[in-house]
């Protein structure tokens, strides 16, 4: 009964999306204004219906209704309660329902809260949003129905991929989804503005909070995903340049560029066409990412629910929406007037530099991700690995950091080069001192880690300089947000550089009673014993890690799950201010061997990577609050206010 109600709600919601689209596009014509009145109510009702459908699916997973195919395939009666709920979106159909629900809720939120944009552009934006939703409803209802029944129903269910049976799963995918789908709002705004021709500061100010919100979710989602891979996969790495990771990184890069260019458009009325283009590209990247993950045309550890037919469906949607939007861009952007001019040494100039560099990284990642596909078509089987990505992206990332040392301090429109030289003295000095110390103390770390640490040190100081000389109580919140986000980037880069340049590793076959050392830590394997959980058994290493008189127990596990059968490794992490001790235990290599395979890493300052990521997101949140808070007051008046 719940399943049928959920399905009915989905069909009704699809009808609402259709209404929203027809009404919204009709009001663009000369006589269609009456139809425009249905757009906002339709968007709100659509949001409510989708929420209901998603709630229904969660309920089905909660009570483990095995007569529903999706539940039977992805859950199990013995599964812990929290993972039963998380299983709702830990599969293809459920995650697509989540996608559509977020899309519909964003539409409802635009209808309810967006007050600044002129009525025509707003209704057109909602029409585009309805058009997008309609495609995904079709996908859901025709090829991925989450509410399909199974007759007869099985007694216990097939279970969830154990790798995903982790708290990380409860938050990582939905967070990313909010980000991906949030970018659809930027896309709808951009297409709406292209159709009405009103690309200007008002449009940019209306779009900015949405971009910011989506970007915050993406940042958090990527940070969480990276940490999840780090401790759950047990390889000790935090980024693998896997196609699916890249699929989340590319929209983030585009969104980051968009976030900066939209500020230029909002404040200085420049970069009009570029901002629109970035809004289109950001969502195109989200959709292309979804396509790559679902179609299985690239091999990836993340690819789930791989199905060429579904891939074809998503590809058709991608071509319709993105192809259509790019064609519209080419046809209509000419009618958008040229923005205000600016000098190269200016805030705009620095942001353009940032945008170009981010776009280059985006291109590098895109080429690397798609290259195996191209090569395969040419008859070669080639995979592009971490060395390519690291080599190609690191120099550009370092350049971005250089631009960041100066950019935020520059004045709008034009700045004085002598003044700039004065400002950058302190951070450059910090960079040089750090570089010199590192080159003397640890030349073996390699060029990139040393440069990374030096630039991070400089940026950690330079990030705060925009606050210098300001009255802090009068400083707008977005400035604080920017400062914290840039500081967070410095922290994160420092973590990456330290991890890649200064990690130590020990790999050993140990019998209980033996000890090994890694980077000042002595780890003793005291015992190995079996432990059991709800739906797994494991061998657990009982280890004692000691350094400088401090001793701590750590307990890495090698888990064996039952439904479905799979082994996972639960690394033991010991976090200290100056790094993490990472321990993994595995079954003996061959039978009858009494030695356990133990892998120990000391990763200096590795947690900075994720702390930095969280700081970046926090900066975004502060900026967002600032924008929303200011919304209550009268918007700043200038010559582009209308």
């Amino acid at each position, binding site marked *: 009964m719940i399943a049928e109600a959920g399905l009915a709600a989905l069909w009704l919601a699809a009808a609402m999306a259709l209404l929203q689209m027809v009404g919204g596009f009709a009001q663009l014509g000369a006589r269609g204004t009456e139809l425009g009145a249905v757009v906002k109510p339709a968007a709100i009702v659509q949001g409510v219906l989708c929420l209901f459908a998603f709630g229904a699916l969660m309920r089905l997973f909660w009570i483990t209704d095995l007569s529903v195919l999706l539940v039977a395939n992805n859950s199990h009666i013995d599964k812990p309660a929290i993972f039963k709920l998380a299983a709702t979106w830990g599969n293809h159909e459920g995650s697509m329902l989540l996608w559509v629900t977020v899309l519909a809720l964003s539409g409802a939120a635009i209808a309810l809260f967006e007050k600044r944009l002129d009525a025509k552009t707003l209704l057109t934006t909602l029409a585009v949003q309805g058009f997008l939703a309609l495609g995904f409803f079709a996908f859901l209802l025709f090829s991925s129905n989450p509410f399909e029944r199974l007759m007869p129903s099985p007694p216990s269910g097939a279970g969830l991929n154990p790798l995903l049976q982790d708290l990380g799963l409860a938050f990582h995918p939905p967070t990313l989804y909010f980000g991906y789908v949030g970018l659809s709002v930027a896309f709808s705004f951009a297409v709406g503005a292209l159709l009405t021709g009103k690309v200007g500061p008002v449009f940019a100010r209306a779009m900015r909070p949405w971009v910011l919100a989506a970007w915050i979710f993406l940042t958090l989602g990527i940070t969480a995903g990276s940490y999840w891979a780090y401790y759950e996969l047990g390889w000790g790495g935090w980024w693998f340049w896997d196609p699916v990771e890249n699929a989340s990184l590319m929209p983030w890069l585009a969104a980051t560029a968009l976030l900066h260019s939209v500020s230029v458009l909002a404040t200085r009325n420049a970069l009009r066409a570029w901002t629109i283009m970035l809004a289109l590209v950001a969502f195109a990247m989200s959709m292309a990412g979804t396509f790559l993950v679902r179609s299985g045309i*690239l091999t990836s550890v993340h690819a789930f629910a791989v199905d060429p037919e579904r891939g074809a469906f998503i*590809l058709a949607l991608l*071509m319709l929406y*993105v192809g259509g939007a790019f064609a519209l*861009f*080419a046809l209509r952007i*000419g009618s958008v007037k040229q923005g205000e001019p600016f000098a190269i040494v200016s805030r705009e100039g620095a942001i353009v530099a940032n945008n170009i560099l981010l776009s280059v990284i985006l291109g590098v990642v895109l080429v690397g991700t798609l290259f195996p596909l191209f090569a*395969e078509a040419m008859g070669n089987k080639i995979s592009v690995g971490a060395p390519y990505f690291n080599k190609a992206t690191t120099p550009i990332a370092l350049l971005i950091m250089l631009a960041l040392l100066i950019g935020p301090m520059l004045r709008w429109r034009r700045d004085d080069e002598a003044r700039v030289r004065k400002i950058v003295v302190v951070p450059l000095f910090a960079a040089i001192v750090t570089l010199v110390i590192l080159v003397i103390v640890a030349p073996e770390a390699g060029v990139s880690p040393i440069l990374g640490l030096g630039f991070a040190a400089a940026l950690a100081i330079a990030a705060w300089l925009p606050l210098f000389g300001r009255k802090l109580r009068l400083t707008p919140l977005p400035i604080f947000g920017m400062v914290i986000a840039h500081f967070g980037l410095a922290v994160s880069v420092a973590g990456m550089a330290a991890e890649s340049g200064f990690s130590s590793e020990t790999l050993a076959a140990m019998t209980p009673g033996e000890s090994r050392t890694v980077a000042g830590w002595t780890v003793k394997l005291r015992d190995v014993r079996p432990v059991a959980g709800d739906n797994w058994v494991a061998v657990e290493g009982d280890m004692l890690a000691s350094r400088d008189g401090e001793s701590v127990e750590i307990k890495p596990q090698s888990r064996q799950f039952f439904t479905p059968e799979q082994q996972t490794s639960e690394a033991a992490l010991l976090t200290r201010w100056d790094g993490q001790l990472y321990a993994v235990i595995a079954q003996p290599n061959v039978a009858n061997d009494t030695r356990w395979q133990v892998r120990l890493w000391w990763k200096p300052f590795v947690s900075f990577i994720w702390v930095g990521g969280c700081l970046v997101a926090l900066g975004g949140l502060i900026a967002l609050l600032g924008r929303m808070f200011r919304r209550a007051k009268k918007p700043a008046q200038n010559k582009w206010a209308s």
Partner: protein
Amino acid sequence: MDRRWLLWVPLVVFAFIAGWFIYGLAVPQDKLIRSAMVGQKLPGFALPPATTGAVGFAASELADGKPRLLNIFASWCIPCRAEAPQLEMLKAAGVEIDGVAVRDRPEDVAAFLTEYGNPYRRIGADQTMRVQLMLGSSGVPETYVIGGDGTILYQHIGDIRDEHVPVLLQKLQEAG
């Protein structure tokens, strides 16, 4: 100069990528990984005997003027058991077969040969999969046709079934 055409660049790039996507969907992927070594000389290696009573060999010994098969197998590999009768058929047809036992133990190899027969002239032990990788092999079993001059002429991936026996014999014949 009119630079309007630049506005169409994103669409063209997108169309190009979408075209590749369609191609990727339409043409199912080849899951077999062909060795890049086919057509090249055998890389240099020397393998110790895989079990007591077996004879090890070096790459140079394979280039003795007579075409032969090089079979990569392991006692722990189930398809290798399935192809044992076909290897016997090839041996009965006068083909010389040398084996490379991958990641195996002498006693297990001996038990395997006792149970499924020994079609091999020589069996080398490749404990670390080094030789397997050098040959460009990505799994067991795989069988290579080696020319009399030591050139890798043909790679057969997976177990040898009845229908593959004539193919291998023909390749050997072509090799001289």
